[in-house]
């Protein structure tokens, strides 16, 4: 198993025959991380298929958010490897991972509260001309032209997520659910290949939740964005995601279509507490 990574893995992505299962866009292998004696993530391996909406579920403390942080470069793994479309991401910083098309959101939204919604979005596109100190002075026209283009794109994204009416509102003034939508909107400004959503439904009222869910489906279908999401709202996961990956004790416990995972006694066991369940049945 271990030997099959290097070249072979690349070949697989490169020349997948038609009809074969779609290749893995994101591949996590043997990821391990401990904090002061506590093993948060333990030889965790899984693949995320391109074009899928994959869920990552598991009981509290299973290491889900840590896995997200390891993938997106906010934490360095002690061991293991993260690959995006065959490219090694391990050890890159968050901004480098971002530029390769992998965006994440936080469980508690991290909006820039003192900026307007529109500014929050306009911040996102990488390598903006005006981000270099001298350009606004030396090349004001080019900077403004680019700003306008970015603004148009931001307005489009806001339109898509039905947030247009809030564009000049300071982000700090948004409701919890609106902030979640804003997080999603920010990832869209980067034309991501894959988006990691950390509990998109937490603290969101049902009607807004329905909208977020609808948008995820739409973005997945229309723009081909792959989603990997951590979620505690099990009904939501069951209706939206395929496959579902169950994490327990920092490692993958089960994976499969929602109906099968749900019927898996090991999963219920993990939730109700019997780590033994998995071992001694």
């Amino acid at each position, binding site marked *: 198993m271990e030997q099959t990574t290097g070249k072979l893995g690349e070949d697989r992505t490169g020349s997948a025959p038609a009809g074969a299962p779609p290749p893995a866009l994101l591949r996590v292998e043997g990821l391990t991380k401990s904090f002061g004696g506590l093993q948060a993530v333990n030889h965790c391996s899984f693949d995320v298929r391109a074009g899928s909406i994959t869920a990552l579920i598991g009981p509290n403390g299973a290491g889900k958010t840590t896995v997200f942080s390891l993938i997106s470069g906010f934490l360095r793994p002690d061991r293991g490897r993260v690959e995006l479309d065959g490219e090694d991401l391990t050890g890159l910083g968050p901004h480098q991972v971002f530029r390769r098309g992998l965006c994440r959101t936080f469980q508690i939204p991290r909006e820039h509260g003192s900026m307007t919604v529109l500014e929050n979005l306009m911040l996102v596109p990488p390598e903006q001309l005006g981000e270099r100190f001298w350009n606004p002075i030396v090349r004001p026209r080019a900077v403004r032209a680019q700003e306008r283009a970015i603004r148009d794109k931001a307005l489009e994204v806001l339109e898509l997520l039905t947030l247009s009416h809030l564009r000049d509102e300071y982000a700090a003034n948004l409701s919890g659910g609106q902030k979640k939508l804003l997080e999603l909107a920010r990832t869209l400004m980067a034309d991501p290949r894959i988006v990691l959503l950390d509990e998109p439904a937490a603290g969101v009222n049902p009607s807004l939740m329905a909208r977020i869910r609808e948008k995820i489906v739409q973005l997945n279908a229309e723009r081909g964005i792959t989603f990997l999401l951590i979620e505690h*709202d*099990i009904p939501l996961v069951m209706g939206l995601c395929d496959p579902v990956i169950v994490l327990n004790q920092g490692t993958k416990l089960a994976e499969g279509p929602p109906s099968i995972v749900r019927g898996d006694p090991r999963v219920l*066991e993990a*939730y*109700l507490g019997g780590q033994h369940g998995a071992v001694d049945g």
Partner: protein
Amino acid sequence: MALLTVEGLTTGYGEMEVLRSLSLRVEPGRIVSIIGPNGAGKSTAMKAVFGLLKPWQGSIRFGDREIGGLSPDRIVRLGMCYVPQTDNVFPSLTVEENLDMGAFVLTGSTKERKERVYELFPRLAERRRQRAGKMSGGERQMVAMGRALMLDPKLLLLDEPSAGLAPLLVDLIFEKVRDINASGVAVLMVEQNARKSLELADHAYVLVGGSNAIDGAGRDLLGDPEVGRLYLGG
């Protein structure tokens, strides 16, 4: 009379409401467990009881005294100790010094109390000169529990004592909880390991979405299919 009575407790972080009108009771000398799916507000309930979060509404009574809004150091002096889930030892202090810190508010010799803790956790007695930061997760949990016991509390709050521990250690920790309880200390604990904690608890509350869903004797809930349904959402 109940040792701890929580009635209609509502609180949260910032603007986010996490607990909605939560009520629970702990009788003297009992083990009470709070279980529930992720994000149900279990740890938040614990923090609110211990004064780490200000209640927005409702009352928290310890004995016959209202403690809602008191600071943790005042609550400690009333006889309630709290063991947080993580970062619960002083890593650069030895085991013995960690225990000394537990008895900080006491004056006079604490030797006898320390011996009692060592009796309960012989493993700590062997390692009393070792720095807590160099110990395994299970040993740290014991140090933290031992430190809380130094004050001879009437009520011990445990936040997920089994989190992150290997299966064998989980059993050991639960055994210790039983021993602690047998020495006359009431225990209120939050657990993700629902099955184990239900086996142990005299009474248990299942929290869903920040409020009580069901409660009952631990053994009864253990066989209740409703509990599994609440976890995996119907």
